[in-house]
């Protein structure tokens, strides 16, 4: 079954293409200090706003910092934070969603009402409000994102668990004496994990966008750390004279978000059993 899936995955060109982009991004994350030609934070006012040259392949910004190096190091911040947010969110949601869905009753009711309340607010505004209370900074950005995001996934995962839970094979497992946690691990997780993986990749693009958006507003990653949203914010005063300053980080965001969306979409199609 797994081999069939692998074959099907490799047949999808879009998946390979987007996967390759994501892989390149990860290479950038891992080997940023080796690949970047300069230190991203070295300020050299004498060489500010230079055009691309051999020394600075994409030119320099208003403080004379190497743009290419900042883009490469920005991968670490954007992808790293987005992954961390998504992984922590997913772990919390899987735990709460599965528990609520499987147990049902009062606990389920309580969690779902909390979800209802949190879902009633637009998530970006909720995140803004939380950062407003906690203050700007990477840790608070991370906290705000997780607190806002978990409700969506907890709800979706609860729904998945509910639909699996009434299957006869779960009832048969109960009758044959399998304890609850074991039923969840053996019979429920394998079903929902593939769908959770799809959600993960489809939505991580959105998380990257939100992090960049909040950093653009000065609420997320703080200068001088190289972050794409913050870079766009820095360069907005030079928009007329040096539009490329804004274009490079914008293109990076576009590429990575598109790659993740495409990857998630194709992954969902490939995992869809109805194709057989």
């Amino acid at each position: 079954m797994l081999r069939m899936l692998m074959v099907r995955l490799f047949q999808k060109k879009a998946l390979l293409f987007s996967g390759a982009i994501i892989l390149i991004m990860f290479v950038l994350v891992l080997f940023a200090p080796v690949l970047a030609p300069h230190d991203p934070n070295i300020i050299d006012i004498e060489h500010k706003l230079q055009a691309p040259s051999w020394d600075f392949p994409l030119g320099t910004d208003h403080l004379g910092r190497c743009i290419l190096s900042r883009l490469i190091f920005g991968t670490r911040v954007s992808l790293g934070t987005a992954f961390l947010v998504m992984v922590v969110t997913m772990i919390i949601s899987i735990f709460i969603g599965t528990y609520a869905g499987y147990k049902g009753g009062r606990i389920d009711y309580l969690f779902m009402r909390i979800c209802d309340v949190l879902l009633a607010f637009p998530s970006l505004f909720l995140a803004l409000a939380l950062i407003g209370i906690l203050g700007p900074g990477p840790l608070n950005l991370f906290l705000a994102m997780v607190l806002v995001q978990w409700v969506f996934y907890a709800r979706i995962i609860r729904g998945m668990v509910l639909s699996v839970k009434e299957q006869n094979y779960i009832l048969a497992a109960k009758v044959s004496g399998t304890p609850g946690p074991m039923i969840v691990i053996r019979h429920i997780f394998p079903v929902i994990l593939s769908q959770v993986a799809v959600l993960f990749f489809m939505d991580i693009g959105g998380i990257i966008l939100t992090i960049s958006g909040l950093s653009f507003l000065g609420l997320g990653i703080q200068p001088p750390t190289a972050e794409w949203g913050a870079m766009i914010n820095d360069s907005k005063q030079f928009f007329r004279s040096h539009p490329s300053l804004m274009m490079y980080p914008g293109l990076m965001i576009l590429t990575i978000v598109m790659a993740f969306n495409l990857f998630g979409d194709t992954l969902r199609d490939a995992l869809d059993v109805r194709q057989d």
Partner: protein
Amino acid sequence: MSLLEIKGISKTYPIETTLWGKGKRLEAVKNVSLTLHEGTCLGLVGESGSGKSTLGKMILGLERPDQGEIFFQGKNLFQLAAKEQKELRQNLQVVFQDCYSSVNPRLSIGNIIAEPIKNYEKLTPAEEKKRVGELLEKVGLSPGNMDKYPHQLSGGQLQRVNIARAIALHPKLIVLDEAVSSLDVFVQAQILDLLADLKKEFQLAYLFITHDLQAVHYMADRLAVMYKGQIIEMLDDIKQLNQLEHPISRKLLSSMLPLHPRG
């Protein structure tokens, strides 16, 4: 001593919920009492929605009755400590109607049958494999099917796998919830034969839930007819099927094809 004794159990389901949780309720099972003796088969017939499957689920512990008590081997099933209950439930297994949804499509046949064994016995992988192989042979499948997956087997073969899982712990009672209804007539007959053989070999008792009087006539020793959550008629000897009196039972009976058609 009777193996299973049900005393006046009832179960209702909410069909309308209001803010205060006091909406209309559907009475699925109303004040039902039954006894089942060791090594016998009790047929439980009734139309769909008559509450027979709910009754089966309560016996299996998948649903809790609102009222009444269930005694299994003389012990009250719902008043035992968790550990004792687990011990007792080992003797109580099930085969469902839909053989496809009764097995996890992601597990191999060997793993499916081994699940109850893993829960109750500590065996080495080799011993476990041997047991599964024996069980497969018992239900008329070759042990070579162990490494196959459910989608590689036919409906009849899968139902045999479900039966193998049900007998893995040598239970005393198996609830057969429409266990042959989804199979074609030819396979039905084979499965019924298999169940009859197993009953003799292991002194099994069956609660045979079905709407098929013909299958009941073949399998069961006694018969109970359910209608709208209640037992409306009991028959202590299945051979006297024609003595059913209640109009609903007569109606079920008339839907049965004659065993010896004339002309």
